[in-house]
């Protein structure tokens, strides 16, 4: 920049500053960087406080009471830790937690395995890989309500395609393949749908991980005559591990609070076979109207997810820094 250009810019800045109304200019000039930062983040902070922090504090308060939202005229009593004690001693709650753990474990295991395999294949950049990537991503783009409803029809033992497909391969009569009515099959019916829908998401994250591995490392391995298996085991998996762990974290948190798919497919049934924690919570809060009790349950779930996620993030950071 020449001196003349620089002086023109200075004059322009002075002119603009002079045109700014004096009180406003003084006010803005009087703000420190910190003050300006606060000015920008305050609305967001207030919004967060109103819609996240306040409800959380309110729920914590309610969890120590016998409050019921359907009895507005009843006196609210402080019941101390009684709600927490009842929840932790309630066998049905533990059954629901077991159902949740079963669902979370198997969906994560299957989605990670299939998602990584798909990402590995897509990363080979074969002919038409972009088209297949798009096709694979379709389930994840659908609304869970749509997915839940059409899988319910697919699973229908008399007219559902799923039952006919299984029947074709196994020879079992389709009317005997009661995916949503059978106690042993219903949990797997939900796992299959969730895996079908969310494996593409895991695949995308894994693909990002695979693409972040520099080519020269593979080239060096080739020079050292490392086999494909050796490359996968010693280069690909360790370097993609932080991404895989991130996918596991996201899916773990999502599936721990899974509600929509289970509600649409089985409603928690048959019996209580697929009654995951969120379904139990909904029943306590909005069907039995035990607001205090359900608040305590929600807090327990929140602490569990928050605690586990924090431990997991620490492990993830260690893996990244290795």
């Amino acid at each position, binding site marked *: 920049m020449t001196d003349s250009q620089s002086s023109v810019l200075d004059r322009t800045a002075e002119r603009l500053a002079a045109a700014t109304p004096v009180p406003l200019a003084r006010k803005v000039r009087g703000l420190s960087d910190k003050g300006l930062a606060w000015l920008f983040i305050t609305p967001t902070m207030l919004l967060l406080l109103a819609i996240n922090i306040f409800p959380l504090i309110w729920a914590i308060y309610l969890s120590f009471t016998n409050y019921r939202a359907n009895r507005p005229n009843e006196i609210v009593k402080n019941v101390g830790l009684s709600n927490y004690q009842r929840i932790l001693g309630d066998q049905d709650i533990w059954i629901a937690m077991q159902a949740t753990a079963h669902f979370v474990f198997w969906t994560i295991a299957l989605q990670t395995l299939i998602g990584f395999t798909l990402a590995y294949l897509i990363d080979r950049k074969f002919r038409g890989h972009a088209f297949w990537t798009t096709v694979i991503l379709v389930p994840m783009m659908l609304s869970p309500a749509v997915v839940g409803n059409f899988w319910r029809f697919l699973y229908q033992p008399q007219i559902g395609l799923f039952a006919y497909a299984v029947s074709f391969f196994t020879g079992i009569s389709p009317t005997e393949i009661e995916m949503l009515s059978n106690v042993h099959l219903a949990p797997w019916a939900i796992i299959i749908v969730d895996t079908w829908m969310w494996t593409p998401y895991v695949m995308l994250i894994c693909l990002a991980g695979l693409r972040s591995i520099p080519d020269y490392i593979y080239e060096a391995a080739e020079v050292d005559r490392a086999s494909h298996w050796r490359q996968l085991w010693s280069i690909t998996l360790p370097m993609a591990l932080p991404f895989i762990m991130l996918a596991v974290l996201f899916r773990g948190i999502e599936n721990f609070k899974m509600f929509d798919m289970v509600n649409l497919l089985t*409603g928690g049934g048959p019996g209580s076979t697929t009654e995951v924690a969120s379904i139990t919570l909904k029943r306590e809060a909005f069907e039995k*109207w035990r607001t205090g009790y359900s608040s305590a349950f929600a807090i327990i779930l929140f602490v569990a997810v928050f605690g586990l996620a924090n431990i997991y993030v620490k492990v993830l950071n260690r893996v990244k820094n290795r």
Partner: protein
Amino acid sequence: MHRIKTMALGVSSAALLTGMAATGAQAEELTLCWAAWDPANALVELSKDFTAESGIGMKFEFVPWTNYADRFLNELNSKGQLCDLIIGDSQWIGGSAENGHYVKLNDFFDKEGISMDDFVPATVVGYSEWPKNSPNYWALPAMGDVVGWTYRRDWFEKPELQAEFKEKFGRDLAPPTTFEELRQIGEFFQKREIDGKTVYGASIYTERGSEGITMGAMDVLYSFGFKYENPDQPYDMEGFVNSEDSVKGLEFYKALYDCCTPPGSSNSYMGEGIDAFKSGQVAMHMNFAFTWPGLYKDEAVGGDKVGFFVNPKGPGGDQYAQLGGQGISVVSYSQHQEAALKYIKWFADKDVQAKWWSLGGYSCLKAVVEDPGFPASQPYAQTFLDSMAIVKDFWAEPSYASLLQASQKRFHDYVVAGNGTAKEALDNLVKDWTEVFEDDGKL
């Protein structure tokens, strides 16, 4: 300039007056909340007469059954003003009365000469009274309903099936009079080929989410001897809810589910039952009476092809049926209570009730249902009358939702999922219900 100002003032005043008039007209409009089903459509038709007579407009808020309780109980609990009139479920009456959601109608009934003696007694107790069997009225019986059965008359009349049935069971293939007969007929039809299609015995209630399996199981349990409590000691349930007879009743319901329902019937309620019957899947169909007019009119399975029968007797000869139906109440948070009470007065009229029945609603007015011409007025009228004479209802306590969810869980766990025994399910139910009443301070 002065003229322009005057004109402007005139136009503004006219606009203001028009606005006020519009607001006034809006004030004379009532919103009636109910479930989205066939009788609601009949009520829309019927209410046109009310608007014509009174000049009060009617708006309707109908919600599907699956969300009906959630939606409207939330509305009432939040003291919402959406509904001026509500046709609430019979089990809501205790909570709605005690929580001040409904306007008490005793004074209004006295003033307008509306007597509860003019209505079928079971509907007054079921839909209007809280506490039960006390003269405290919170609703006018609006829609009588009860669980009964429809069957495929055309299949029952097939000579080859009649012959086969008689040979097997030594009696005619006819609508069952006992539950044992019902099970035998169910087994007889299960997986049978009729007109080139595989058909099944019966469609029964198994729904888990709202109230389905409780309505179905109770419909059977009552006739086996189930009682909610000790008649001499309220809320004493041990030995009544889980009596030997009750256990047999629940075992029977599971046996019926296992032997005679179509595949995939683990979550079936009113809608699924109608679908199963209309699509020609089942020989018998448990459902509330409100479904009968629609099934009778159905081109595929209605007319001469359908028959109706009352809930059969239990092993000891007892015969009861699960009450359905609702009363109409004025919401205490409504801004239009006067107009809403006018609607109730109009609805209680004999001619209106007679038209209500003719349009597909189920009147609870004695003058209508005890009319000599009533039994012949529709093919299902006599079955409805006979069923209404034997009704029992679920708890209507303020905590009915918790009580209902407990029975939903225990029944579904045993009947559909096959976990544990009937005795364990009912023992656990006693524990759950006891806990609810302890929380309420009633035990």
